[in-house]
């Protein structure tokens, strides 16, 4: 740490010196400081925080000159805001340089040393990324090269170790990926060479990733090099697109998959069609044992190498985000269909200003698998066999949603929505015995412009919740209640039952946002926990600078107020956030 400050001073003097030069590079960056105070609130389950006030902050500094660029990110977790992994702040808080890189790029090659974020195909075998608001950062630290010297063909190679908080994980990650754009590639051999009809596009890709980690296990014979690969194809013609990717992984026994020697595999298919006013998207995803990490011992979000997103709709309305689905990397099969239609202006339903409707349906099941009884005593063996592409009996998640947006006049707009959802809580939140949640949610939003720059916005939402018991086979049953009508099974946690939500927001463009909202858990089975979560925010924006001051009880989830969306953890107290881009 002692050498850090002089280094920073030196850095700035270099910048200042070069800034006087006509041929200077460009320096840019951004920062964000979040401060949160904590008032103990046993009713909502807000923990007693001994530090009383905590803060997360980061500052990015990027320097670009011609084909060169370099940058650093300084991060501090003093201590980390609740909701972030406690590994960020450790016991005493942590601060330091979490990311630094240098890069050279021209038309043929792009080389990075230091930290980098990379994604192969759809990310099913490799995706390193950051989500600062969630405290996720699994950047690789090493070297990456991208070659594009042949038209239509791009090759990417990586070597690195993966970031784990302020250190790196034990594994070494190697990977190579290629992507071929058929029509462009053929042009290398002749300008008029083409095998596809006009307007059709065909793209192929494939990648290989291997992780090396020493086997120090005294009993098991573990693979030290774990290989994963993917092959993918995209076809496009007019408004039609089809995208398919298959990924596979060799046996990779570890904590998160109960040390099974089964290989892993995944298939993702997405088809879409669109024309002006209409968008249709259908996807299917099947996964079996695809949890892939650079360390066998890591858990949760630490040292994850791949990305397996949920095939469900990502909601923003507050009550719709209460029970969000999370992908089950050890096995699931899911489908999703999404249709968006905008009625033309001037039509009967479209009216003068247009109306759009969005319908989404998704359903996720277990994969059809049988435990291998013969192998159950063997130390090293396949624990189960699966029928890869068939739906298992257990329903994990089911969700139907309709949203209608209509602009009634120049000054008035409304949005209405309905959602019906089934959420297998005991599986998704790893809380055995908590059963499933069946909910119906109605959302409404009204936006009214008072003047050209002043707007008021109201939201009212209601969520009706029913708790379901689920037996070992996955059958959905009515809850079991005692003589007083209190639920014995499934187990209920603090937030249970129905909710109502209301928000009022007043904005003066382009600078001020003032909002007040309340969530009321009126249907909680425990009368003492029928709580109001009242909270208010004042936001000031000037260009890229944003200052937020908030106070109140906040339940966890994605919060979208003041024109920006950000995940926020549960708390009670003051919050202050400052961010800017320079």
């Amino acid at each position, binding site marked *: *740490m*002692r*050498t*850090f400050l002089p*280094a920073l001073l030196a*850095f700035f003097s*270099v910048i200042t010196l070069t800034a006087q030069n006509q041929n200077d*590079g460009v320096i*840019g960056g951004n920062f*964000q400081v979040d401060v949160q105070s904590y008032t103990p609130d046993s009713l909502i389950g807000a923990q007693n925080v001994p530090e009383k006030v905590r803060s997360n902050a980061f500052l*990015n500094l990027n320097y670009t*000159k*011609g*084909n*060169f*660029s370099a940058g*650093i990110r300084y991060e501090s977790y003093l201590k980390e805001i609740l909701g972030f992994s406690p590994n960020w702040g450790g016991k005493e808080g942590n601060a*330091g*340089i979490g990311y*630094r890189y*240098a890069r050279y790029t021209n038309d043929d090659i*792009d080389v990075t040393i230091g930290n980098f*974020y990379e*994604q192969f195909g759809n990310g099913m075998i490799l995706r390193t*990324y950051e989500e*600062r608001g969630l405290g996720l950062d699994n950047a690789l630290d090493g070297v990456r090269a*991208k070659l594009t010297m042949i038209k239509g063909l791009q090759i990417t190679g990586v070597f690195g170790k993966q970031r784990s908080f302020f*250190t790196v994980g034990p594994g070494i990650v190697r990977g190579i990926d290629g*992507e071929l754009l058929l029509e462009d590639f053929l042009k290398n051999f002749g300008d008029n060479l083409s095998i596809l009809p006009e307007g059709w*596009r065909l793209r192929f890709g494939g990648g290989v990733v291997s992780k090396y980690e020493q086997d120090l296990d005294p009993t098991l014979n573990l693979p030290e090099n774990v290989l994963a690969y993917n092959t993918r194809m*995209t076809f496009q013609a007019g408004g039609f697109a089809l995208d398919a990717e298959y990924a596979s992984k060799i046996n990779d026994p570890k904590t998160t998959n109960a040390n099974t020697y089964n290989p892993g595999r995944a298939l993702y298919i*997405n088809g*879409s069609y*669109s*024309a002006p006013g*209409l*968008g*249709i*998207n259908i996807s299917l995803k099947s996964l079996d044992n695809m949890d892939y990490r650079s360390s066998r011992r890591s858990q949760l979000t630490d040292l994850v190498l791949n*990305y397996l997103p949920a095939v469900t709709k*990502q909601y*923003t309305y507050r009550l719709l985000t209460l029970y969000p689905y999370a992908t089950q990397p050890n096995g699931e099969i899911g489908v999703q269909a999404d249709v*968006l*239609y905008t009625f033309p202006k001037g039509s009967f339903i479209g009216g003068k200003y*247009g109306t759009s409707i969005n319908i989404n349906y998704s359903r996720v099941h277990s994969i059809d698998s049988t435990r291998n009884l013969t192998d159950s005593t063997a130390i090293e063996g396949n624990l189960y066999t699966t029928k890869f592409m068939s739906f298992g009996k257990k329903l994990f998640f089911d969700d139907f949603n309709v949203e209608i947006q209509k602009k009634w006049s120049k000054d008035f707009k409304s949005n209405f929505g309905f959602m019906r959802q089934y959420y297998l809580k005991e599986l998704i939140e790893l809380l055995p015995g908590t059963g499933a949640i069946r909910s119906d949610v109605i959302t409404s939003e009204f*936006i009214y*412009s008072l003047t050209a720059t*002043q707007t008021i916005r109201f939201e009212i939402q209601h969520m009706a919740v029913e708790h379901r018991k689920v037996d070992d086979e996955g059958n959905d049953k009515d809850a079991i209640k005692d003589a007083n009508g209190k639920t014995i099974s499934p187990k209920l946690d603090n937030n249970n039952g129905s909710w109502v939500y209301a928000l009022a927001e007043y904005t*003066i*463009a*382009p600078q001020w946002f003032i909002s007040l909202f309340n969530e009321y858990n009126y249907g909680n089975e425990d009368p003492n926990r029928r709580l109001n979560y009242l909270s208010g925010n004042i936001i000031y*924006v000037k*260009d890229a600078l*944003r200052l937020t001051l908030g106070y109140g009880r906040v339940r966890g989830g994605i919060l979208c107020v003041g*024109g*920006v*969306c950000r995940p926020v953890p549960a708390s009670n107290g003051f919050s202050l956030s400052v*961010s*800017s881009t*320079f």
Partner: protein
Amino acid sequence: MKSLNSLMFIGFLSLIMCMNAFAQDNVKQVIPAASIKNIKGEKVNSATITNDGKPILLNFWATWCKPCIQELSNLSSLYDDWKEATGVKIVAVSVDDVRNSAKVAPFVNGKRWEYEVYLDENGDLKRAMNVNNVPHAFLIDGNGKVVWQHNSYAPGDEEKLYEVIKQVAAGQEVTGH
């Protein structure tokens, strides 16, 4: 780790100084080079986005971001007039990751938006432009310089935005921000 970090840092300093010595004169670069995808999912270099010396409004958004959709919907009805009067081009960069990126093209079409749309699935351009949260808009003048930027959206922001675009299109200094 910390002393190692500092050492690395000093290493980078030397590298930057070397860059100053070796780098050639600046080519007029509109948008930093990052690997993004066009609406068809084909990889493109963001530095190739241009508008023949006229202003570009670069808008970062996502399909799950309500204020972003509100902003792009409101701009959509003004776009034709603005284009005609100032030559401005609106480039909408979606930061949706693979969970939603396949939905972007049907979404944009379904909304009848006529913007040039790109996918920044892994945040490469978002990082290169130092974007914290969406929506975040940059106004880039004919010389490739960012002359104005704004984070967040409130209905009515377009009033101020159009004033700034007109100033930039006329080659004037951006005032009053």
